[in-house]
């Protein structure tokens, strides 16, 4: 499988469908596992790493997952291909930049990936669109069972699954939910959300932005405690308490914008439209920031029936109701396909930042162009 077969489209987990998809982008569960009888990666020689890689690769490629799986050698991949895999959340930034023999097994539908020789020998991951944590938990548990039939995990009755870093010890589970929270940001309440998350020992980080900054108002919230709490308890805390509460806060903030701060809302949407339609050079950061406001406008129209002057203009521009409607799916496509590695891979060559900014602006202009040939 070539990466360019994937790069022209978004993956299923980013399709904008699924439960609560106007706010919850996707659900993800990751398990950290290590093989018994081997050292952790920091003390492994390249030959030992290669042995672990080959062993796990064979096991993973033989699993019955109901979808075709393929393998990519991350250490042999080009920088551009590695960046592409990071942008699609199929490998971590750490895996992209680690050293020595390492690879990733990916299900064609991209709902499952297994990073081999990341920080731990094995990191299994299941991703689904919208709010589907139970389904993720069920699937990853089944995959973990299948892997465990064929290898022996490093496990201690006292500490559970033994991981390279003590912060992942025990269940080795990391539950992450990606959320779009533009209204909390606009109404200045996002800090409250950060602090509440911190009080519950949860970590929040920005998605697609560098480091912790959320250029796109997309945030990822995940558990930090992995020891002394069962997998079910962690998933249930997210499913029944954490996420429904955040979703309610975001909904209330959207309602507040609509009833009390409509000028602020319309200003954000109108500015985003004007800049995205008119810009000839646009950075990835700026594009994500502006697209986030269009996404908010479309969602408020579709879910809340909002019809402010700017939202009406946005809908007219998008031609909502026709085949060419600018849907959430289309906005998500623009989010992902204008990321630097996606742009370059689809263009067929590496580009300097200025050329990338020009190409990005052109793609967005043509997607938002109401007079585009396909609509005439």
């Amino acid at each position, binding site marked *: 499988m070539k990466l360019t077969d994937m790069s022209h489209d978004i993956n299923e987990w980013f399709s904008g469908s699924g439960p609560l998809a106007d706010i919850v982008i996707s659900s993800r569960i990751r398990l950290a596992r290590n093989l018994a009888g081997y050292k952790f990666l920091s003390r492994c020689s390249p030959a030992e790493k290669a042995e672990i890689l080959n062993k796990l690769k064979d096991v993973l490629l033989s699993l019955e997952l109901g979808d075709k799986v393929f393998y990519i050698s991350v250490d042999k991949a080009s920088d551009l291909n590695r960046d592409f895999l990071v942008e699609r959340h199929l490998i971590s930034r750490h895996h992209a930049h680690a050293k020595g023999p390492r690879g990733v097994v990916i299900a064609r539908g991209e709902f499952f990936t297994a990073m081999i020789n990341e920080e731990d020998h094995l990191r299994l991951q299941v991703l689904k669109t919208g709010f589907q944590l139970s389904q993720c938990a069920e699937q990853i548990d089944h995959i973990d069972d299948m892997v465990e*039939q064929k290898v022996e995990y490093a496990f201690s*009755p006292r500490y559970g699954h033994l991981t390279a*870093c003590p912060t992942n010890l025990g*269940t080795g589970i990391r539950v992450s939910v990606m959320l779009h929270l533009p209204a909390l940001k606009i109404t200045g309440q996002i800090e409250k959300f950060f602090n509440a998350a911190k009080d519950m020992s949860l*970590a929040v980080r920005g998605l697609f932005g560098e480091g912790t900054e959320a250029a796109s108002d997309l945030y990822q919230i995940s558990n930090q*405690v992995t*020891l002394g709490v069962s*997998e079910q308890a962690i998933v249930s805390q997210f499913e029944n308490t954490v996420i429904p509460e955040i979703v309610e806060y975001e909904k209330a903030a959207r309602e507040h914008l609509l009833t009390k701060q409509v000028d602020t809302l319309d200003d954000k949407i109108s500015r985003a439209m004007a800049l995205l339609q008119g810009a000839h050079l646009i950075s990835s950061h700026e594009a994500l920031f502006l697209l986030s406001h269009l996404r908010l406008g479309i969602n408020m129209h579709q879910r809340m029936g909002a019809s402010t002057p700017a939202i009406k203009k946005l809908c007219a521009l998008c031609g909502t109701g026709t085949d060419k409607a600018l849907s959430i799916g289309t906005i998500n496509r623009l989010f992902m396909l204008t990321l630097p590695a996606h742009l370059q891979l689809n263009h067929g060559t590496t580009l300097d930042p200025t050329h990338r900014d020009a190409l990005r602006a052109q793609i967005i202009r043509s997607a938002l162009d109401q007079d585009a040939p396909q609509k005439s």
Partner: protein
Amino acid sequence: MQCQICNKRTATIHLTEISDGVRSEMHICEHCAAEQGIASQSQISMNELLSSLLAVQPTDDELFGPSEQDKVCPNCGFTLGQLRKEGALGCPCDYEVFEKSLLPLIEKAHDGKTAHCGKVPSKTPKKTRKQLESLNLRRQLEVAIQKENYELAAQLRDKISQLDTGIEDRP
């Protein structure tokens, strides 16, 4: 640790102030920090978390105790100094070899918890699996009693005694 201002909530912000050469410490909760106008860093990555856990300890001796400071893992050659540098252990045995030193770190990273509760690999011996299950039920029982859910507590107690009988009966 309780907040030193309200004496109610858990202290999550720990301030150290050095004024005129005198060092003072203050432990307060988010709420009181906000009231006092103290901003906190709200997003911490896993590595930062580990580094900060390590950094609050002034010296290796204070952190790990002199006894394990010079210890070398016979399996992988790992020393505690490397954990500070790399943020990762050398092999699964290190959890046992350096247990005394690692325990406080584990406790801090996992909200005071130090024992596994959750999935157990199917290859684990039956007796160990049952013991772990019994341990988990006991934890649930504690919570049920705290919440005064006596119906659930009674059910859990029965399950535990059934399970424990099973464990003892085994040869």
